[in-house]
């Protein structure tokens, strides 16, 4: 496997360092050749930077990609936004040689060159494609059979598809495959592909952001969902933090929000606190308790066996 740099992004390092923790734990246990490198900046965040200055958006992303190109690494990120933004710019420059030349003229003055040779992947498709379901299954100590999971893909894990090319952009499968490989049931629900709506918080429309979160949480609650699983810090902010704020106002959903690497870590035998899950706003204990209760139940085969061997009362 080719070495890869991890692009942590601003949100994880600023607000959710525990996501970095569980990601590192999982990468280590799989002995994956990941590297931390100097020099990254914000990816940059599209809705803030691109709306104000497309040129700044392009050169900043191109410079970040140039850093990995130079080292002949690939790039993997646990943030959907970062990968999507970097890949969008990579795609734009590859399709547009004149623009690429313009950008490289600027980059040259700071000693860099955008080539676009490195592969840019989000962690979930990376685990699916590069690590593989087989390798994952071998690492599982205790699976999630009996647990009902609502996956939230996060728009930018899979879109824009012309730049990311990693799954069906409207009916993706890979995250589902991974969750099923961990033994859980991945619920199919109406609002599954709906955008989290966190962007509304960034334009000073907090109530509307809550409204978007509420729609999905309500549906998941009605389906008896044990946890929402996702892999994007913005979506996490939306469903963990904003759900907590609604709970404080008396609107309780009780849907724990679990990062993909946390779920994987649990299955591999790590404790919730080791993975930093005690730092979530919405309590994850009900999920863990139910899971433990399910797994201390004797296997179904035993019950049948016991039934067969029981004395017959005629």
């Amino acid at each position, binding site marked *: 496997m080719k070495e890869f740099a991890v692009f942590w992004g601003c949100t994880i390092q600023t607000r959710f360092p525990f996501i970095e923790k569980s990601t590192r734990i999982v990468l280590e246990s799989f002995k994956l050749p990941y590297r931390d490198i100097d020099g990254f900046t914000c990816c940059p965040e599209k809705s803030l930077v691109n709306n104000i200055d497309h040129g700044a958006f392009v050169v900043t992303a191109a*410079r970040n990609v140039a850093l990995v190109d130079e080292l002949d690494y690939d790039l993997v990120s646990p943030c959907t936004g970062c990968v999507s933004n970097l890949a969008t710019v990579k795609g734009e420059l590859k399709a547009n040689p004149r623009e690429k030349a313009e950008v490289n003229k600027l980059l040259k003055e700071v000693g860099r060159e955008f080539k676009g040779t490195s592969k840019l992947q989000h962690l979930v498709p990376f685990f699916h494609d590069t690590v593989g379901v087989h390798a994952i299954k071998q690492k599982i100590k205790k699976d999630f059979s009996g647990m009902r999971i609502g996956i939230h893909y996060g728009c930018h894990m899979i*879109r824009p598809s012309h730049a990311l090319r990693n799954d069906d952009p409207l009916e993706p499968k890979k995250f589902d495959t991974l969750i099923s490989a961990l033994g859980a049931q991945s619920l199919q629900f109406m609002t599954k592909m709906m955008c989290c709506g966190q962007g509304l918080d960034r334009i000073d429309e907090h109530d*509307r952001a809550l409204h978007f979160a509420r729609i999905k949480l309500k549906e998941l609650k009605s389906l008896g969902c044990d946890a929402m699983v996702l892999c994007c810090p913005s979506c996490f902010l939306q469903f963990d933090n904003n759900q907590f704020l609604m709970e404080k106002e008396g609107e309780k959903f009780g849907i724990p929000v679990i990062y993909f690497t946390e779920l994987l870590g649990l299955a591999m035998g790590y404790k919730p606190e080791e993975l930093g899950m005690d730092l979530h706003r919405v309590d994850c204990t009900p999920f863990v308790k139910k899971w433990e209760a399910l797994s201390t139940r004797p296997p179904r085969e035993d019950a049948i066996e016991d039934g067969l061997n029981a004395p017959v009362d005629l």
Partner: protein
Amino acid sequence: MLEATLNFKLLEQCSKCGACFSICPSCMHIPGYDPRAVIQDILDGNHDKWLSSRHIWQCLECHHCLEICYQHYGFENAMTALRTIAAKKGIHPTQVKRGWEMFVKTSRLGEPALPARKKLGLPEPKASGAEEFKKLFALLKAAREKQENPEGKGSE
């Protein structure tokens, strides 16, 4: 140099289509959000009236419209172009402005949470590229000015 622009030929087709309206989360859940009206106004030369509207910022950039669009265009491109024009005129939500300023100043949208990292046993964060980024950003601005003012006669 490197500007977002409107594509009128594609927008003409949009005005006869509207397919993405049915998949757009903002169209579904935000009353009054309807890029079809915006596009019609752009085509009629009245894009100005949307520049101060909240609606152009309510596009979540989820790219659903882009994916189902037979032109691979998407409402969002029109909304992005309008946001860019509005931002140039200084009309944008406060948080967008704040985020942009922090980005230009620090090259990031926040600094690593050091005490929490320590508690979690995370390694020291790697050096950021802030200095190089600042240089690059200055170069971009200079290149633009040169393009607008090739003779070097005064700049803004």
